[in-house]
C-alpha cells in the first residue's frame, strides 16, 4: 500500500466522522439552523465519496462504468464545495439576521 493510499483511506475515515458529527449537530438544532447543517451532512458524505474515488484511482482502477475515476473524484469535490458554500451562506444569513435583531 502506497503512502497516498494510506493517507486517503485515513481521509475517508475523517470525512465520514465529520459527516457523523454534523448529523449529531443536525439532531440538536431546529429551524433555519437545521437547514444549514443539512447541507453540511450531505457535503461531508460527498467528500468521503471523493476520497474513496481517489483511493480507487491510486489503486490503478482508472475508470468506473466508463467514467474516469479522476473525473468522478473532481466532480464529487465540486459537489462538496457547492454544498459547503451554500451551507456556510445560510449560516451566515442566519447569524446576520440574529445580530441585526439584537442590535435593532
Amino acid at each position, binding site marked *: 500500500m502506497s503512502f497516498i493510499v494510506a493517507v486517503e483511506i485515513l481521509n475517508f475515515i475523517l470525512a465520514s466522522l465529520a459527516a457523523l458529527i454534523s448529523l449529531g*449537530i443536525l439532531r440538536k438544532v431546529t429551524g433555519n439552523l437545521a437547514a444549514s447543517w443539512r447541507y453540511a451532512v450531505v457535503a461531508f458524505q460527498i467528500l468521503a465519496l471523493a476520497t474513496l474515488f481517489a483511493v480507487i484511482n491510486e489503486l490503478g482502477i482508472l475508470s468506473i462504468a466508463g467514467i474516469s475515476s479522476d473525473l468522478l473524484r473532481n466532480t464529487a469535490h465540486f459537489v462538496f464545495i457547492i454544498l459547503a458554500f451554500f451551507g456556510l451562506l445560510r449560516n451566515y444569513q442566519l447569524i446576520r439576521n440574529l445580530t441585526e435583531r439584537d442590535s435593532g
Partner: protein
Amino acid sequence: MTIVDVLAVIVALGGLVAAFIARKIWLMVEGELAASWRWLLPSVPVYAVSYTVLIMHNFMRKFGAVDPVLNINFEVNILEKRSMFSMQVWEPIILVLRNVQVLVEMLFLVLVIVGLARQYRLFQKLAEKQG
C-alpha cells in the same frame, strides 16, 4: 485543458470564496461559538490550498518532461576493480506534490473535525439548557 482540470480550478476558487464567507461568520459570532469557528475558519483556505496543489500536480504530470530530470553517473575504483554506477531521478516533485496534497487534505479534515466537535458540544449544552 480537460473537464477534469476545469472542475479542479472551479473547486479551488469555490474554496477561496467559501473561506471569505467563513471569515465573515467568524467576525459576527462571540464566545464559545467564535471559538469553534476559529477552527473551522482556517480549514476552508487549507482545502483551497490542497486543491491548488492537486491542480499543479495534474498539470505537471500532463506537461512534465518525459525524460529523467537528473542523470548521475559515477565510477568506483577499488583495488583496480572498476564499477560503473548510474542513477536517474524521474520528476520527484510530482510525487512529492501528491503526498503534500493528501497531507494538506488531512489537515483540513482534522481542523474541520475539531471545529465540528466543539460546535456539537456547544449545541448539546444549549439543548440540555432548553430541555
